[in-house]
C-alpha cells in the first residue's frame, strides 16, 4: 500500500513536532537541527524528508549549505481542521458542564 503523506502525519510524531518548533524561529541546516536531538543524523534527516514530502518544510540553498524552513501557511491547514472540532465539541461540552452545574445545585 502506498503511504500517503499529509500534514497530519507530519505532526503525529513528537520529534517532527520538535523540529517544526525549532525551525519556526529561523531556517536551519540539517546539522544544526540534529544537534538538538539525541537521535542519529540519519533519523533527523529521515524526519526532514517526511516533513518535506508533506510540504511542511522547504529547502533553501545558501552557498554550500541547505537550510530548512517552515511553511507557515501549511500549518494553517491544521488550524482550520482543528477549528471545526474545537468549536463544536468544546463549546458543546462546556455547555454541558454548565447544565450539570446548574442541575447539581438545584437538587441539593
Amino acid at each position, binding site marked *: 500500500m502506498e503511504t500517503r503523506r499529509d500534514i497530519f502525519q507530519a505532526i503525529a510524531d513528537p520529534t517532527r513536532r520538535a523540529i517544526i*518548533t525549532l525551525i519556526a524561529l529561523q531556517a536551519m541546516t540539517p546539522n544544526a537541527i540534529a544537534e538538538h536531538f539525541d537521535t542519529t543524523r540519519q533519523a533527523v534527516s529521515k524526519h526532514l524528508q517526511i516533513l518535506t514530502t508533506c510540504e511542511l518544510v522547504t529547502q533553501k540553498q545558501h552557498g554550500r549549505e541547505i537550510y530548512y524552513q517552515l511553511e507557515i501557511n501549511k500549518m494553517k491547514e491544521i488550524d482550520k481542521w482543528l477549528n471545526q472540532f474545537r468549536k463544536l465539541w468544546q463549546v458543546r*461540552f462546556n455547555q454541558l458542564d454548565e447544565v450539570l452545574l446548574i442541575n447539581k445545585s438545584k437538587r441539593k
Partner: protein
Amino acid sequence: MKPALLFDFIVDKENKTIHIKREFDADLALVWEAWTTAELLDRWWAPAPLRNETKYMDFREGGYWLYTMLNENGERIRLDNEEIWSKWSYIAIADKESFTAKGGFCNESGTMNPAYPQNLWETKFTEANNRVLVTINSTFDKPEDLEQTIEMGFKEGFTMGLRQLEEWLSTLSTLGK
C-alpha cells in the same frame, strides 16, 4: 484545585472511527439524564450561538430523537436552502451504562437524507473519582463518509490529543510571529 477534566479527541481513519473521551464533574444519574432527555439535551447539544430544538424524543430501544437547530434569529438552520434536521435512532440502551444510536441528517418528518452519511454512536458512561467519564465511539460505514463529515484528508494513526495539539500550536504561533 481539581485536576482539569480529561478531553481526548482521536480520529482513526483506518477504522472509520472517531473516539471522544470527556470527564464530567457530576454524578452518574445527572450525566446520564443530560445525554438522554430532550429537556437537558436541548440546553447543551447545539454549539452556541445555535440553539437546539427537539421535535420528538423517545429514549428507548427502537425509539428516536428528532431535532433541529435554530440560529440567533430563531430561524431553523439551512444547508443548500434545506432545513437541517437530525435523527438518532436508539438501537441498544443499558440504563446509566451505555447507549448505541444510529444517526444522520433527515427532513422534518424524520426521513433520512441519503446524500449525507450516517454514523453509529456508542456512548459509554463510567464512574471514577467522583466524576463520570463519557466515551464515544462514532463509526462510519465508509472511510469517505468520515472524510465527508470531517472535511479533511486525515492520516491513519494520528492519535494526538486535541488539547496537546492545541497547546503546541499556540506555542508555535507565538514563535512564528
